[in-house]
């Protein structure tokens, strides 16, 4: 008789691996099925050109929530952090720059070169934001309540918010509620006068969403990113040795060391449903594996519309899964370089090319009308400056995150636009490092279509569904399945399409495992 499992996990993205680890740790027999020949999903390091290894999709990682990293003892499984000095450098016209450091005073001194008033406000801004972020961070760890009719267990869960919220005074609490639906530019306008400073921060309110900084709700995106450790100006001063893939490699080792089994090149074709309950999966090879629960690391649309027999899913629910906004609008560009490009500043930190709020807003206009930005904002990293293992000696890898490149183009298609987008990105970059084009040995552009084709991210959405206020919290991915559970009993979601959203935080997988174990008990 074939081996049976307690839990099957569809997908070895970082969230699937985190969920697998927690379930295995709780004594469950777990099998992770990954369609790709490698683990990691969107968090991978890949040798795109011989000898050159890139963090091909996700550039950085969120703060993999400290207690997840500790629980899973990732340091024991080869995870190594390399210290870096600056966190982020905003490249400004005419050789200008604005750098951010983990030391508040040092950043303030840097800001003072642009605005004395803003430099003076910087420490207060940091303190206020960290305060709000602490509450948001707690919120992210919750299994969201089923609203409008929460269960007793939901209310107990919400009690966990009381302690961090108590640390805020009434004004701060009011500020939090007021801030969430704001445009990130308005939020920053209330603090600062220097456009370059505001722009360098505002990018994180539109990272991975199809919105511009003057659109409502982007302050929420910003706060969420802040709490997840994804606002570089406030992130950890370290870089993963071996690129982002090192994280998922370590997670895979942690999961297997706890007893989970892992199978690569094992695409799940269908989740088997019997009498309204998930009972196992069928692989593309035809092999059937049964289990008591199935947990999908795939995005909600794929899970509900491709992995289930539609006859088993309530049509109204199925239709609502079709309304989830994905709207990927980011492109990646990878360059193998023969040497270090000459920037007007030290390039070890992430470099941000987004010199003003208007610049970002104008770039976002393109997305509204179904074209890509001729002048995109860019996040540029040169990880080989700190980690020489990623390229042959003396040579370098450079990766760019560019926005906006909407998945849905009005009158063109990505197969014909890919190369022109690449040129636009490169010429934008060359304004700040004119020698880059001469250094390029190899290059690759990943449009949202490529992210969909190569990494299974529908519409190229980094977050398995756009990370907007209306698709957040108890409404993520949609209200009917926002608690990691689905209308199919024993079928759970654990990917970025669930609360608290995208980014390599591991929280989705952690919370999903908690829910599964709670329901088991």
């Amino acid at each position: 008789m074939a081996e049976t499992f307690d839990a099957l996990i569809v997908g070895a993205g970082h969230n699937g691996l985190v969920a697998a680890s927690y379930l295995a740790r709780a004594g469950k027999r777990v099998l992770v099925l990954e369609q790709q020949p490698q683990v990691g999903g969107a968090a991978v390091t890949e040798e795109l050109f011989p000898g050159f290894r890139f963090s091909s999709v996700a550039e950085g990682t969120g703060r993999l929530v400290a207690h997840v990293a500790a629980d899973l003892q990732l340091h024991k499984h080869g995870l190594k952090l390399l210290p870096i000095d600056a966190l982020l450098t905003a490249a400004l016209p005419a050789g200008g720059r604005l750098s951010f450091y983990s030391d508040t005073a040092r950043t303030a001194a840097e800001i003072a070169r642009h605005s004395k008033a803003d430099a003076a406000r910087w420490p207060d801004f940091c303190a206020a934001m960290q305060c709000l972020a602490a509450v948001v961070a707690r919120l992210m760890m919750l299994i969201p309540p089923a609203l409008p009719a929460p269960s007793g267990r939901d209310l107990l869960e919400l009690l966990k918010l009381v302690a961090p919220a108590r640390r805020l005074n009434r004004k701060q609490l009011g500020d939090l509620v007021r801030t969430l639906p704001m445009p990130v530019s308005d939020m920053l306008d209330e603090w600062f006068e220097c456009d370059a400073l505001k722009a360098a921060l505002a990018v994180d309110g539109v990272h991975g969403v199809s919105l511009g900084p003057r659109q409502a709700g982007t302050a929420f995106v910003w706060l969420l990113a802040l709490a997840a450790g994804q606002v570089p100006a406030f992130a950890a001063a370290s870089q993963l040795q071996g690129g982002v893939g090192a994280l998922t490699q370590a997670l895979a080792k942690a999961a297997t060391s706890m007893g989970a089994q892992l199978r690569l090149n094992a695409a799940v074709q269908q989740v088997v449903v019997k009498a309204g309950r998930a009972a196992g999966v069928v692989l593309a090879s035809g092999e059937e594996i049964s289990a008591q629960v199935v947990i999908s690391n795939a995005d909600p649309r794929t899970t509900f519309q491709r992995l289930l027999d539609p006859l088993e899913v309530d049509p109204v629910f199925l239709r609502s899964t079709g309304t989830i906004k994905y709207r990927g609008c980011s492109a990646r560009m990878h360059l193998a370089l023969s040497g270090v490009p000459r920037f007007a500043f030290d390039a070890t930190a992430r470099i941000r090319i987004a010199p003003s709020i208007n610049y970002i807003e104008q770039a976002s206009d393109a997305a509204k009308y179904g074209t890509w930005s001729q002048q995109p904002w860019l996040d540029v990293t040169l990880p080989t400056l700190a980690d020489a293992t990623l390229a042959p000696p003396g040579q370098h890898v450079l990766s760019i995150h560019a926005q906006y490149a909407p998945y849905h183009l009005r009158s063109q298609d990505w197969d014909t636009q890919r190369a022109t987008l690449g040129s636009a990105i490169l010429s934008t970059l060359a304004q700040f490092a004119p020698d880059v084009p001469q250094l390029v040995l190899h290059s690759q552009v990943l449009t949202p279509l490529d992210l969909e084709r190569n990494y299974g991210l529908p519409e190229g959405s980094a977050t398995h569904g756009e990370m907007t206020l209306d698709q957040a919290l108890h409404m993520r991915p949609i209200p009917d399945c926002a608690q990691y559970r689905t209308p199919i009993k024993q079928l759970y979601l654990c990917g970025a399409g669930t609360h608290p959203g995208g980014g390599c935080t591991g929280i989705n997988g952690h919370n999903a495992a908690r829910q599964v174990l709670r329901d088991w008990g």
Partner: protein
Amino acid sequence: MPRPSPFYSRTAALCESHSWQEWSGFLSANMYELHHLREYYAIRTAAALIDISPLYKYLVHGRDALKLLNRVMTRDIARCAVGQVLYTPWCDEHGRIIDDGTVTQLAPGRYRVTAADPSLRWFEDNATGLQVQIDDISDSLAALALQGPLAGEILQQAAGPALAQLKYFRHASAAIAGMDVSITRTGYTGDLGYELFADPADAERLWDALMEAGQPRLLRAAGQLALDMVRIEAGLLLVAVDFISSKKTVFDVQKSTPYELGLGWTVMLEKGNFVGRAALAAERERGAAWATVGLDVQWDSLEQIYKRYGMPIHLPETAWGNAVPVYSDEVQIGRATSGTWSPLLKKYVVLARIQPQYAKPGTPVCMEATVEAQRHMTAARVTALPFYNPPHKRA
């Protein structure tokens, strides 16, 4: 403004009463003469031609056509052979009726579905993930009902003697005066009858050909008022009158399940999963909250009430369709939803939804009767449906 149906030039010419109603956006004759009784008798004793073009019609085809229909419909569409027609309701995910209609398998894997309400969106929602094409053919098919004990003879006259072989709830393609017509032996009268579907461009010539063939057998056009009477006699429910589509109300109390509407025989729990199955399975275990029955209003009892006012009994001239309380021992047990005087049966017949423990035929109940703006109770007897079920309907 309601729009004219493809038969309008013919129906309008006959419509001496100028009495029209709106039906799904179309003008539909209430009655052609100043009184509808001759139209009623035509349906029951000869034959009548009824313009049913306003029905919604869909063509479902493609690899997963059967899968889609079996997902939506409560009956097992796999049992619908080519050339067969099935009557079936369809429900929402809570097992509450959205609408009902017929499914005809025209050719292998090609189905025509009729519906009272627009259903494209619901069918398409259910088609998510399936390879199936759903065409709204409502406007590309003109439709006529030819109903009554002589309908068969008239049809054979018009379309050839082969139609004599067409059995109850079967489909045939035929030619009438050189026009292609798709014919099902179905109807909404509970009598012998056919429904004919044709190209709207042929509509007027089709009407003329049938009228000509039917003239020796006293065929006449019939309107909605006559139809409403016969459908009550036949125990056929009318959406928006006897029940409300679950898509047309947000209040659960206003929705109904097939079991509550006497349509439990259409619910095939064993056929595999379909929309509403889980809820319907639970309901079957539990028992339905309501039963749909006929009420035979007792003449003597009603006459007594009128007598108190010094009046002769007064019977409704047309079918009515509004909720009227039904009682047992002064306790309300349900509601009547439509009723009519049946000239053929010489009975006052009513459709009602009552608590199941009172549903046994013969149970005496009372129905509210308002006389001179005063409320009274008239005696009625629970009756099995249909009230009228002539052998020639199926023969």
